[in-house]
């Protein structure tokens, strides 16, 4: 994603309602929007952008399953095979007493796995440089980025379209 030479058209919007109508209009013109950056969550924006629901819950489920299996394997190996001990007159492998630990490991792995997955897919890594299309998106402006390579329209057409949709200014940004 971070290779150089990628060109983005960046529209700056003053207001969330203008942004919402602009998203609708621009997507109506068969233009693919790469991403919108807003200072605060804008209600209904992800629907207008046509985002599908995140699949991170599937990742969480899989990590959870791994956690449950690992926990049981660990305890069965430790308590039943490697160093069998009689505790409370129970069997070496006393499944009911393993459940609380298995539950904790499940939660732990599901949570950590979900965070790790999120960091990876969001390209958040140590010393990684975040893509900043316009620093004002952290203050009071709403920013819309359009990947030029993914659209058939040229720079001129795109900036006209953005201005028509209500953008207060249009910039170009290379990464």
């Amino acid at each position, binding site marked *: 994603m971070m290779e150089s030479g990628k060109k983005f058209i960046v529209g700056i919007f003053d207001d969330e309602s203008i942004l919402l109508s602009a998203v609708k209009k621009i997507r109506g013109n068969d233009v693919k929007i790469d991403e919108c950056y807003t200072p605060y969550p804008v209600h209904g924006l992800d629907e207008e952008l046509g985002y599908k629901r995140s699949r991170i819950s599937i990742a969480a489920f899989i990590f959870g399953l791994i956690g449950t299996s690992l926990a049981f394997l660990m305890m069965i190996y430790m308590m039943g095979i490697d160093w069998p001990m009689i505790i*409370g007159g129970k069997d070496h492998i006393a499944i*009911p*007493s393993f459940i*609380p630990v298995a539950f904790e490991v499940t939660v732990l792995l599901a949570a950590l796995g979900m965070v790790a997955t999120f960091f990876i897919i969001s390209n958040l890594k140590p010393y990684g440089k975040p893509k900043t299309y316009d620093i004002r998106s952290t203050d009071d402006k709403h920013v819309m980025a359009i990947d030029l390579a993914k659209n058939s329209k040229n720079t001129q057409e795109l900036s006209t379209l953005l201005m028509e949709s209500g953008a207060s200014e249009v910039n170009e940004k290379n990464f």
Partner: protein
Amino acid sequence: MAEEQFQFTSKAKKTISIIAIVGVVLLGLGIFFTASDSGHSEQSGHQTEDTMDNLPVVADDLEDAHATEDIDQKHFGEPEHGEGEHAGAEHGEEHASWLKRIYANLWINNMYFVGLALLGVFFVAIQYVSQAGWSASLIRIPMSFSSWLPIGGALTLLIFLLGGHDIFHWTHDYLYVEGTDAYDEIIAGKRGYLNTPFFIGRMIVYFAVWYLMFRFIRKKSLEEDLKGGQDYFFRLRALSAIFIVFFAVTSSTAAWDWILSIDTHWFSTMFGWYVFASWWVTALAAITLVTVILKENGYLKIVTTGVLHDLGKFVFAFSIFWTYIWFSQFMLIYYSNMPEETIYFIERLSSDHYSKVFFVNLILNFFFPFLVFMPRDSKRHTVFLKIVTIIVLIGHWFDFYLMITPGVMKEDGGFGFLEIGMALIFGAAFLFVALRSLSKIPLVAKNHPMIEEAKHHHVF
């Protein structure tokens, strides 16, 4: 907004009547089979070793099983009850096994549906106390459940008066006569709390206050429909808060009284919560099911998919909560391994019949809703909502079955036509009462201050 009114059509009444008739027929068949199997129960006094092996466990087995004949001894088969073994026969206070089984079933269904009715009030109260907006559109459905409360109360008293000795071991006077064989020190020690006058007194107080609070809540909510304004909301909130405080104590004590005391020697400090959890999931599942069915029949257009999704989440979450309580109770007893506590699970796990129900209980009430309701989409589709809530409703019936039957019937518990028939009769009666009361009030609390929020309720 137009006033929406539920029409209790003759078609619906007919369906309910058919359920009830099927229930009566099955109950009759069940009684016939059970009674003819235990017909020799008079010739008592020869408890054989092998009776445990050929007990009538399911309907299919009923015909060739003839082991129930020794019932007069066997319900004292539990070690701690050994002393009372002969006393029971001498006093002649015990009934034939089939009658006992009917009482047990009456009690199971009564507890189950009293719980549904009571937790209906609790649902309403918790919504007002938490100032919840999402549920404002369906608040009348749990309210309609609670119309069963007076009937449930009357039945509780009636069944206790008729079958109290069969259901509750502690009601026998001979247990308290010091110096005799039958004297039971442990039960006698509990006499300060577990005695018949106090028991009946508590029962009456519970039902009276529950029902009174429910009437107040219902009255205020209906007045709000006519007049509107925020006053009613705040008054309802105050009423609900009082109800919840009373409920917090009485739901536990009622569970001790009505269910825990069946296994008189045994005790569990988690039991109140356990029964509450079971009741609460049942009520949530029933509310969801009724809402979905009403919506499919063209009512409650105001209820959004988001609200259904939240109801699904509620059932999902509290199925897990129930499992958590279930497991906590099991785990502590399993781990500490004290005979007076483990007897409860030994009774249920060492019997061929109950051990099946034991695991069925877990599968229906935990694994099934947990796995099916985990994906988001299954909580938003009426088909899944219906399947899961029906399974959960059946599952929690088995939960109550498992709480009550082993204590009452000892090893002689069975599952057959009798159980199904009784459950159908109770279900039909409950449905009739609830739907009739629903048809008399506006289906939507139109002047509820949060109704707009419910209308636009939207979850991801």
